[in-house]
C-alpha cells in the first residue's frame, strides 16, 4: 500500500518533521543543562543563537503537522473504496489497529505544538528568556510523542491489507457498537444540546468580557477547554445529523466529504484553533508574576482570546446555519 502518492508524501513529511524535532531536542537538552544567562561564554552565545533555529524549526514543524493532519484524514477518506465495507475515513482507519491511534496522536501533537509555540512566543518577548528551561523541557516531552506518531503512521500504512473487510461508519457510530463513540452517540440529545448551546454561549460571553476588559482570564481558559470538548461531543451526538439530514448517521468524517460541501474542514479548523488559543492563553497565565513578562502576557492573552472567541463564534455560526437550513427536524 505504500506506493500511493499521498502515502509517500505523508510518510516523507512525518520523517522530516520527526528529524526536525530530534534535532531541536538535542539542542534543547543542551540548553537545559548549560544555559546560564549571566555567562558571556562562547557556549552560552552559541546556545542563544540556537534558540532562533529551534523556534524556526518548530514553526515549520507545526505548520506541516496541521497540513498532515488533514491530509491524513483526507487520504483515509479517499482510500475507502479500496476496502470492502469502508465508506469513508471511519472505515479506512479501522482497517488495522494503528489507524485511530495515529489520528489521535496527530491531533494531540498538533495541539501540543500549538501550545509550545505560544509559550515560545511569550518567552521571546521577555528580555531575559524567562521560560527557556520550561519550554525546552516541554519540547523533550513532545519529541517522543512525535516519533511514536511517525512510527504508528508507518505501521498503519504498511499493514494495510486491501482485502480486509472493515466496518462502515454506519455501524461504527451507532449506540449498539462499543467504545467511547458509542457512548457519545448513546447520550440523550437534549442534555447534550443544552450543554453545547449553554456552554458555547457562556464561553463567548466570558470571552467577549475578557477581550474588552481583560478580566475573567482563568474562567475563560477553562470554558474554552470545556467548549472544545463539548463541541466535539455535540458534533457526533446531534450536529452531524442535521448536516447529513439523516436521523441515524453520526459519522464525524463524512462531513469532510464533497457531498456536504467540505463543511467539516472549517468546523474542525475553528474547533482546533479555538482550543489551542484558549488553552494556550491559560498556559501562560502562571507566568504573569515574572517581572519581564508582567506587561507582555496580558497583551498576548488578549490577542489569543480574540482569536479563540472568533474561532468559537465561527464554529457556532456554521452549526446554527447548518441546523437552520437543514431539511431534518428531530422534534
Amino acid at each position, binding site marked *: 500500500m*505504500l*506506493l*500511493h*502518492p*499521498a*502515502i*509517500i*508524501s*505523508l510518510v*516523507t*513529511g512525518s520523517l*522530516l518533521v520527526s*528529524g*526536525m524535532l530530534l534535532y531541536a531536542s538535542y539542542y534543547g537538552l543542551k540548553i537545559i543543562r548549560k544555559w546560564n544567562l549571566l555567562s558571556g561564554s562562547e557556549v552560552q552565545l552559541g546556545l542563544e*543563537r540556537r534558540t*532562533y*533555529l529551534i523556534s*524556526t*524549526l518548530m514553526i*515549520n514543524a507545526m505548520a*506541516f503537522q496541521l*497540513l*498532515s493532519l*488533514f*491530509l491524513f484524514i*483526507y*487520504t483515509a477518506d*479517499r482510500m475507502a*473504496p*479500496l476496502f*470492502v465495507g469502508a465508506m469513508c475515513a471511519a472505515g479506512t482507519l479501522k482497517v488495522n489497529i494503528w489507524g485511530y491511534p495515529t489520528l489521535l496522536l496527530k491531533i494531540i501533537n498538533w495541539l501540543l505544538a500549538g501550545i509550545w509555540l505560544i509559550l515560545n512566543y511569550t518567552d521571546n518577548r521577555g528580555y531575559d528568556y524567562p521560560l527557556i528551561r520550561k519550554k525546552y523541557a516541554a519540547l523533550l516531552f513532545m519529541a517522543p510523542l512525535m516519533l511514536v506518531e511517525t512510527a504508528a503512521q508507518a505501521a498503519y500504512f504498511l499493514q494495510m491489507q*486491501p482485502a480486509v473487510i472493515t466496518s462502515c461508519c454506519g455501524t461504527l457510530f451507532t449506540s449498539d457498537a462499543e467504545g467511547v463513540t458509542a457512548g457519545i452517540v448513546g447520550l440523550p440529545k437534549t442534555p447534550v444540546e443544552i450543554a453545547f448551546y449553554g456552554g458555547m454561549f457562556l464561553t463567548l460571553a466570558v470571552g467577549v468580557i475578557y477581550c474588552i476588559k481583560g478580566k475573567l482570564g482563568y474562567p475563560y481558559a477553562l470554558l474554552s477547554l470545556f467548549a472544545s470538548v463539548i463541541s466535539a461531543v455535540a458534533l457526533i451526538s446531534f450536529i452531524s445529523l442535521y448536516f447529513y439530514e439523516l436521523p441515524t448517521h453520526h459519522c464525524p468524517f463524512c462531513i469532510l466529504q464533497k457531498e456536504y460541501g467540505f463543511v467539516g474542514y472549517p468546523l474542525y479548523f475553528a474547533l482546533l484553533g479555538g482550543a489551542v488559543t484558549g488553552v494556550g492563553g491559560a498556559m501562560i497565565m502562571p507566568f504573569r508574576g515574572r517581572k519581564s513578562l508582567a506587561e507582555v502576557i496580558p497583551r498576548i492573552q488578549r490577542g489569543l482570546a480574540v482569536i479563540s472567541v472568533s474561532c468559537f463564534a465561527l464554529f457556532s455560526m456554521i452549526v446554527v446555519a447548518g441546523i437552520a437550513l437543514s431539511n431534518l427536524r428531530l422534534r
Partner: protein
Amino acid sequence: MRVIEKHRNILDFTLSSLARRKGKNLSLVFVYTFVVFLIASVTFFTHSLKTEAEVILRDAPEMMVQRLVAGRHDLIPMSYMDTIRQIRGVQSVTSRLWGYYFDPTNGANYTLLVKPEEHSTSGTILVGRGVARSVRSKQTGTIPFKTYDGSYLFLRIKEVFTAESELANADLILISEADFKRLFAYPDGYATDLVLHVRNANELPTIATKITHLLPDTRPILREEIVRTYDAVFSWRGGLVIVVLLGVVLAFFILAWEKATGLSAEERREIGILKGLGWETTDVLFMKFWEGAVISLSAFFLGILCAYGHVFFTSSMLFEPALKGWSVIYPDFRLTPVISAYQISTLFFLTVLPYTVATIVPAWRAATVDPDTVMRA
C-alpha cells in the same frame, strides 16, 4: 497594521535582493519548477485516469455473472437466468453477447457487442472512432469479417460514435445478434455473460454469495470490485513513478542545500551591514523566510501550470507509454482536467516541505553571522 507594514518592507527588500542575483536564483527556480512539473504531471495524469474510469464505470451493471470452465471464462447457458431470477432482491437479469475479433488486415483487436435496444439491423454496424480510423476501405464504408466457418461477412458502417465517449468505445463495434452469431458460429441458448440489476446495493455481496452456492461453476463480479482495482492500479503506477522520481527530488534538495549554505562573500557582507544597521536576527530570518517563500511558491505554481498543460493539452506525451498502456487501436482522448486540493497538498508535501527543511539551517546560519567579523573580512 505595523506588522503588515514591516513584512511588506522586508518582502520589498527581499525581492530587490533576489533580483540582484538573477542568475543564481533563476537557475534554482528553473530546476525547482522542473521537479514540481515532473511529480505534478504524474499525480494529475493518474488522478484523471482514475476519475475517467469511475465516470465510465458509473453506468456499468452492478454485477456480472460469468461461467468458468477449467478456470477460464466460458459461455453461460441461458437457463442459468431463471435460477438467478429466483433469488430475492434481484430486479432483472439480462444476457449479453460480446467478443473480440482480430482483424489481420491491420493487426487490431475489435470489441464486438450486441445491443438490441441500440442497433438490430443485420448487415450494418455502428463503430467507434478508433475502428473508423483503422479500417482501410474507408471509401466503401464496409468492413470484411472472416467468419469462423471460413466465409466472409461484409458489414457496412452505418454510424460512427461521437468523440466524447472515445476512451470507452474507440475499439467498439455494435453488431446485430444475427450477424454476431453467424460470425462466431455462436451456439443457440448461450450467452457470453449475464448482468444483474439489484434493488438494494447493500444486498450485492449476499446475492453474489447465493449465486456461487446455487451455480458453483459461475463467478460473480461486482462493479465496485472493478472500480477498486482501477483505483489501486493507477495509484500504484503513479506511486511507482514518484518513487523513481524521488532520486531526482533528492538530488535537487542537495543542490538547494548547497546553494543555501554557500553564501557568497557579497551576501554575507549584505547581511552583516543589515545587522550593523540595526536589523535583528529575527528580521534576517524573516527575510530568509520570504526569500524561500518567493522561490518555492513561484516554482510550485509554475510547475503546476506546466504540468497542467502537459497532461491536459498534450495528453502527457512524456509519461504516456509508461502509465497508459498501448494497443493498435488506441483511443485518442483528451483527459478531463481534474485538480483537487488533495493533489495540491500531496504535491506540496513532496516538494515544498523537503525544500524548506533543507534551507532552514543554512538560513539560520546566515542570519546569525556576526556583523563585526563579516564587515572586517
